[in-house]
């Protein structure tokens, strides 16, 4: 189903306009299934198929894009004409020169790997798995709610461009997680595994869900939710802070990944979540973090949901440093932004579906592991706090001032893990925070976390990205 190569190329060929500089056409079929259980009931069971075709053209210095969910030939040709009309309108209010970085045409086909097809596993088995993971958490009257969910995602994409590329890609992904909610009077606590907001996600099949071992982890999650009800509130003040892998992954997302998007730095996203403190003159000289901080964008990691073979400009996936030994060295770029830096695209332009404009998106943005085992970091901390699992996140419109809340914290006293603490909040200024990093966990504490809900663009596009991070320590961080 969906338009084949010949049809896509015929539509491109039909775009006859003397001002046309570039055109591409994409088709996507996006399949999703979501299963959720709650308190012994099936809470949500849904299935979605979304098919779309989008045409993007550059005429003069004006971009035009038009899309449709109607896959008839007549509709696709109408949308192509509409893209030209929209580009002509853009030229009314767009005078800046648009330069596209050079690219070779590619003809390729790729798909992500999985062992057990998510759609080959029956709904019954998925529900059974979730029930096994959540039912043991029930029983204590303070446990108000237990829930678990599994998500399946597959996107098939065809891309053809006026420079002669034709690329087919399919990604198959799964995600899952559980949570326990404990309430005692006015106190409300939520504990999740392995991550909140749907759990963790990988480009994989059912084997990933089994590997999460949610039924094995359930009682620990329940016990921690209950313990949080009576735990003392995390203190306010300045502490040495050890941030666990999952929370640090979100810190990388908000305070490095987003500000390193070149379109954001150029002001193109200001109207939504703002701009970036990382400006082009800082490239190669700005001390973003301590020399221990190495942050890499890597769209080539097998099995991660931020990976792909080609971006939606038709540029091959790449691996490169954003921050090297603490110095800011590169942005995430696309074909129409990289020339601003005198560089070529590093292949990070993607759209949620063919119905959306491709824009710069994170891939897998990873804090590289260091050499210190987490146990040694803890043992080396005299007075500190260890935080794990994100609960809330907020950052200002230049990605400088941030505040994160976590599900749980523990006191560190004289190198030992002490009492559990509830409702920890920490806040700071992005470069000050990363410059205070004096210990980065080794490969054993490093994990890649799939984040399927990164929002950007207008209309809002929800992108699937990922972040690898170890645990790390930051000195003298403000809490509370």
């Amino acid at each position: 189903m969906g338009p084949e190569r010949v049809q896509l190329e015929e539509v491109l060929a039909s775009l006859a306009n003397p001002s046309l500089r570039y055109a591409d056409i994409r088709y996507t079929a996006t399949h999703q299934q979501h299963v959720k259980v709650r308190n012994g009931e099936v809470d949500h069971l849904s299935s979605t198929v979304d098919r779309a075709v989008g045409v993007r053209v550059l005429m003069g210095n004006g971009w035009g894009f038009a899309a449709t969910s109607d896959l008839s030939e007549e509709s696709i040709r109408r949308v192509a004409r509409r893209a030209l009309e929209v580009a002509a309108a853009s030229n009314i209010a767009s005078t800046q020169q648009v330069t596209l970085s050079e690219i070779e045409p590619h003809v390729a086909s790729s798909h992500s790997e999985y062992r057990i097809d998510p759609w080959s596993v029956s709904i019954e088995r998925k529900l059974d798995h979730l029930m096994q993971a959540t039912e043991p958490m029930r029983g204590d009257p303070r446990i108000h709610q237990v829930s678990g969910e599994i998500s399946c995602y597959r996107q098939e994409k065809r891309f053809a461009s006026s420079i002669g590329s034709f690329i087919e890609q399919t990604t198959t992904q799964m995600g899952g997680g559980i949570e326990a909610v404990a309430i005692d009077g006015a106190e409300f606590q939520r504990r999740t595994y392995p991550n909140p907001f749907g759990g963790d996600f990988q480009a994989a099949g059912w084997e990933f869900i089994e590997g999460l071992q949610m039924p094995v982890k359930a009682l620990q999650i329940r016990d921690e939710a209950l313990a949080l009800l009576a735990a003392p509130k995390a203190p306010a003040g300045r502490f040495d802070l050890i941030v666990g892998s999952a929370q640090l992954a979100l810190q990388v997302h908000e305070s490095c990944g987003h500000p390193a998007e070149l379109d954001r730095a150029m002001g193109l996203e200001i109207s939504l979540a703002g701009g970036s403190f990382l400006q082009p003159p800082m490239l190669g000289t700005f001390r973003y973090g301590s020399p221990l901080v190495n942050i890499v964008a890597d769209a080539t990691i097998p099995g991660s949901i931020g990976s792909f073979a080609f971006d939606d400009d038709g540029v091959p996936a790449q691996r490169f440093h954003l921050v090297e030994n603490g110095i800011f060295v590169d942005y995430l770029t696309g074909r129409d932004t990289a020339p601003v830096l005198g560089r070529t695209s590093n292949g990070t332009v993607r759209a949620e579906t063919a119905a959306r404009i491709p824009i710069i998106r994170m891939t897998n943005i990873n804090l590289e592991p260091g050499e210190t085992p987490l146990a040694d970091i803890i043992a080396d901390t005299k007075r500190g706090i260890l935080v794990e699992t994100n609960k809330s996140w907020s950052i200002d419109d230049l990605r400088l001032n941030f505040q994160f809340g976590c599900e749980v914290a523990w006191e560190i006293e004289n190198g030992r893990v002490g009492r559990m603490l509830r409702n920890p909040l920490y806040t700071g200024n992005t470069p000050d925070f990363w410059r205070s990093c004096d210990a980065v966990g080794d490969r054993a504490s490093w994990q890649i976390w799939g984040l399927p809900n990164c929002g950007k663009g207008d209309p809002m596009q929800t992108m699937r990205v990922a972040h690898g991070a170890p645990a790390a320590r930051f000195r003298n961080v403000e809490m509370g």
Partner: protein
Amino acid sequence: MRSEAESFDILGRALAAAKADEADACFVSVDQNISRFANSQLHQNMSEEEASLTLRVILDGAMGVATTTGFDDEEIARTADVAREAARHSKAVPGFQGLYRDHEPVPEVDSFDEATAALAPLAKAQALRTMFDRGAAAGVEFAGAYATGASSIACGNTHGIRRYARMTYADATAIAIGQAGSGFATRRERAAAAVDVPALGDEATLKATLASGRTEDLEPGAYDVILEPPALGEVFDWMNMIAFTGQSYEDGSSFFVGNLGRRMLGENFTLVDDAVRYLPFPFDMEGLPKRAVPIVERGVLRTPVLDKAWADRLGLAPTAHAWHLGSPEHGSAFHLTMDGGDSTREAMIASTKLGIWVTRFNYVNGLLEPRTALMTGTTRDGTFLIRDGKVAARLPNLRWTQSMVEAFSNIESLSRERRSIGTWYNMFGGTLAPVVKIRGWNITGKQEKSEG
């Protein structure tokens, strides 16, 4: 956008394919154009024609939902198979009394504007060009978006309910950026004629150039704040998620739990979801007629907003807030209207000895402690120090951490004038809010620019 006949044909075929005890379906078709601009350049310009069908089947009280963008008989049959399979594995919703079947009339509202539906991208680009030129003369550049759309929405069920309506919207945001700082203005309406884009640019420019050359700092602490409607809109987006939905009420995270009928907020705080009078729309996706639903009335918590299944489950009156069939929120308030008062923004400034005037918030998060609606966020695009009743200086963007239960108990005054603000997740409505002055808002930090 599809006609009533075409929409009902698709609904009819979907309901026939359901082969279930009960079924309902909605068919939504959207034609929209969004023009995004930055640095006074129109850099993204997109048009979209999108349509989707959602089918929900009920088997022995259990629900299954499937959505597709294909509408031929084969695809509809496949979608129905998927929905039935989901329902077979599901369990009955406790207390569910079945799908809506009362056939009440829906309110007669004017939700469609022909001129907006016909507005061409060229005309929008020309309006933006006018704004950019005025900005250049004033020394500012603009960023923002100008979106217009026309939709047809149809829903129906196996009890003979059939609803159809057409809807338009126009939404513009303008951020003016100059040497002194930035300013912001926004508006959402049903008709594009009511959204004067160059005028919004002028309003944003005024904020960007106000108190030019005068900047001060502010230590953390509790301050009186004057919040403009866009700031309240951001807060209400989160209130909607953490406090008003059927799901947040049922799972115990909402501060409404155990407090219905109690005065938890100030007597001058009234919040009504009103799709009859504000950005009107006649029915929800389950076919229930829309009506004005008081959520908070003079500080008294009245009801969460619910789809029918969750209303039945919770033993509460239905409120007609199903915007997606099978939505995990089980109700969302898309037409929030906050009552105004008898003040003006200027009077609030004049009455403030030391305080902060806030244009809008950035990146609010309401998940800190939902039972007190403790939220955090920062200010942006125009934050001003008020001293001795006058605008004294521009302030850096400030971080705040504040319980909304506390804040909405401390409202000192409200403006008579209200502004309609759009939200990114909601094409149906928005938020209509006044300017408010609130005592004792907790400022906890600020944006500090880093040196290399």
